[in-house]
Every structure is written in C-alpha cells, then in structure tokens.
C-alpha cells in the first residue's frame, strides 16, 4: 500500500513536510551555537585587575596586584520580551553593583536600542545587596518596553543575589515573587470572552461585538500596551523557551487562548476579532471603501509570503533569537519604533488599506493562514488523518 493511500496525502503535503524538516534542521544548527564570552566585560569592569579566577562557567573572582580579592563578576538571566536576557555585573566586596552590561539578549533590535539609549541601565549600576532591585519598586520601568526593562532588572537582581549570598555572605532582602496580573491580562481575557460570545450569535449584535473587540484590541493591545501577537511568540515556542509564568501571564493567556480556540472552534480568533493592526486596516478599509481584490501574479505573491515566513522562522532558530526576524510593522505603528524600511512599509500599507482590503494580512503577514496558520492547520490535518487511518478497525467481511 502506498503512503498516499495509507494517509490520504495531498499533492502539497510533501512540501509541507519538507518545510517542517527544514525548520528542524535550523533548530539543530542554532542549538550548536557557542556560549557567552565574558572576557570583554571583565576587562572593562576591572581595568586595574591583575587576574580573574574562574569559579564556575559564569562567575569570576577578581584579583589585585598581590592576589587579593577585589570583587566578583557573575551573570544573571531572566525573561525579556523575545526570550532570555543575560546581564553581567561586577560587585565590590561591600556589596555594591559597580558595573552592568548586557551580554546576550533576544529582544527586537529597535526596542532594545530604545532601552539602552534611555540610560535605563544607569538605574541598575550603583545598587547594593540591601536594595530590592525590583522594577516598579526601586527601579523605574519604561513604557513601551516593559518586558525588556523587566528582564534587565531581574537579571541584575539574580546576579547580585548570587554574589552577595554565595561569595560574600552578605544579607539580602527576602525574595518577592509576585504574580503580575493587571489591566493587560484583564483586557485580554475580556477580548477572548467577547469573541467567544460573538461566535455564538448572529446578526447586527455580532457585528457590533466584533467592532468592539477590534477597537478594544487596537486601543489596548496596540496603542496602550503595545503587545500584539507576533511571529516572535511562535519562534519562542519553537526554540523551547517558556518565560516565567508569574511575570509573563499575558503571554501565556494569549498563546494558550489562541491554541484552545483553534483546537475547539477551528477559528483564528486573534486575526479576525482583535488583532490591533487588522483593526487599523479595517478602519482604513471602511473609510476608503476597500474590497478584497484579485491581484495579478497571485501565486507568486502567495509563495513569496510563505518563503518570507520560512526565512524569518529559520533565522530565529539559527540565531536562537525569536525577535531577530520579527518583520511585522506593529511596533512601528503603535510605538513608532522600527527601521526606516518598516516606516516606509507602514506608510504604503496604510495608504493601500484604503483601497485594498487588509493588504498586510493577505499578502505579507507571517501569521496569516497563507503562511504559519496554514502550515499549522495542514500539519494537524495530516497527523489527524494518519492517526485515524492507523487506528481504524477493519470492517468485517
């Protein structure tokens, strides 16, 4: 019996499986990348040191002229927006964090640069073992880059505690692990709930509820929290990076909510009901009277969209950086952050949206059913069909 007969394969399933195999190869290449080299930080933080005695892979004892200990250096890691973020710190013998630097991160380049340029890191250097080093307590956060500033603060907090307790035997404040549950999480749950209700009713009320979630998504997920669903979220899952649930509850509600909705309703609730950039395009479409139009070279455009998505996921896996290939223009639209190319793209897309219905979603978005969502749906279909065929009992003769 051929595989086609056994599993009910379609013509394009071979291509889909090849794409999945390629993603696995990229994951494997990325896993082989080298670790962190702390030497540049050591020499910058202690230019007068005569030597550095390695305690373990990431911790060093700093030695003076006569071999006396001057201080310690170590790293701390916490979750940023796009994945783990590692900071190196140096601490003097009296427990002062003298120097800090980012040694590894997975943040979207433009957001990362904003935090660094804002001198946010200046708040972290100079802290002592007696300080809580907690965002919103003794460190001021940055609106628009909350997760990046949270990741930096937590990394320094962990590194400082490590040196103070393990090497210097100094007192540290008790650890506070509070669950971050605020307005963003409440809004997200409300959007999911309204979308569930809307799916079960018809008529004018359904349209009103859809516009409610679209405008809610635009205002809250877009302009206020700047937390839209992006390819980086999928990349994080593929890389196998799951942030702490206590500080990234929003991320978990979003991912689990989408998967649950997809599994139970077979419906992409996000794109249709509350994607903030989708809402922006729909508003433009309403103003300009845009309609879905059949474009020329539609097959080429479809495959270009798919190939871009595969390239973006491949880069994220190879570089072990979920945010590196996030080419979406959501941050450009809602936080005015991005490259010149993204600003040009945003201008073209917004103008085009007046005449063409959702041009970003239909021709460029890596999350659309033409790309990632379609691959997810079809992989699930292949697996389900194969499972049904394998477990099907032979009918009695």
């Amino acid at each position, binding site marked *: 019996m051929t595989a086609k007969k056994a599993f009910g394969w379609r013509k394009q399933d071979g291509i889909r499986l090849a794409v999945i195999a390629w993603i696995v190869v990229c994951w494997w290449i990325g896993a082989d990348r080298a670790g962190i080299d702390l030497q*540049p930080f050591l020499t910058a933080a202690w230019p007068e040191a005569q030597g550095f005695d390695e305690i373990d892979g990431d911790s060093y004892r700093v030695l003076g002229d006569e071999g006396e200990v001057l201080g310690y250096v170590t790293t701390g890691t916490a979750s940023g927006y796009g994945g783990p973020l590692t900071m190196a710190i140096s601490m003097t013998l009296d427990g002062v964090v*003298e120097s800090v*630097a980012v040694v590894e991160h997975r943040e979207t380049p433009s957001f990362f640069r904003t935090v660094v340029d804002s001198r946010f890191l*200046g708040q972290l250097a100079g802290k002592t073992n007696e300080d809580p080093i907690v965002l919103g307590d003794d460190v001021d956060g940055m609106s628009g880059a909350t997760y990046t500033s949270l990741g930096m603060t937590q990394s320094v907090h962990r590194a400082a505690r490590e040196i103070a307790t393990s090497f210097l035997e100094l007192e540290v404040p008790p650890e506070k692990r509070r669950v971050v549950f605020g307005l963003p999480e409440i809004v997200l749950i409300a959007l999911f709930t309204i979308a569930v209700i809307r799916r079960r009713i018809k008529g004018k009320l359904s349209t009103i509820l859809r516009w409610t979630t679209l405008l809610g998504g635009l205002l809250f997920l877009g302009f206020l929290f700047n937390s839209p669903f992006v390819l980086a979220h999928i990349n994080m899952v593929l890389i196998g990076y799951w942030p702490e649930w206590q500080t990234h509850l929003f991320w978990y509600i979003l991912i689990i909510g989408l998967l649950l909705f997809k599994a139970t309703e077979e419906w992409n609730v996000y794109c249709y009901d509350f994607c903030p950039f989708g809402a922006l395009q729909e508003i433009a479409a309403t103003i300009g009277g845009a309609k879905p139009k059949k*474009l020329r070279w539609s097959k080429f455009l479809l495959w270009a969209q798919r190939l871009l998505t595969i390239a973006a996921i491949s880069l994220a896996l190879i570089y072990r950086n979920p945010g590196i290939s996030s080419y979406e223009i959501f941050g450009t639209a809602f936080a005015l952050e991005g490259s010149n190319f993204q600003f040009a793209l945003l201008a073209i897309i917004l103008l*085009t949206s007046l005449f063409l219905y959702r041009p970003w979603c239909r021709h460029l978005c890596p999350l659309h059913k033409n790309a990632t969502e379609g691959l997810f749906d079809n992989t699930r279909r292949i697996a389900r069909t194969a499972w049904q065929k394998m477990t099907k009992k032979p009918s009695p003769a």
Partner: protein
Amino acid sequence: MAEDDKKTKPGVGATLWSLLMIVCLLLVIAHLVQAVSQDTSSEEDLIRSTFTTVAPTGGQ
C-alpha cells in the same frame, strides 16, 4: 465566454497593486538583512555599547 474572461481577469489596477505588494516584499527583505547584520555584530560590541558603571576607573 470572452466577456466572462474579461470579468475574471485582473486589470491594470490589479497589476499596480501587485507591483506595490512586491515593493513591500522588497522592503521586508531589506529590513531582515539589516536586522540580521545588526545582530551578528560581536558580543564585544554588545558589551561595549551597554556597559554602564559607577566605578571611578570604569571603562565608560
């Protein structure tokens, strides 16, 4: 039949919109190339650009 073809075939407008989408694709590719080249700058550059100290003899 010919009239049906005329109805379903994309016109000049569709060609222009398609060209505009291709321009958008090129912009995305340019952005990706720029993002990757920025990320592949060395660890030393990253540490140097983010190094912050309160030490009087510190590097920055």
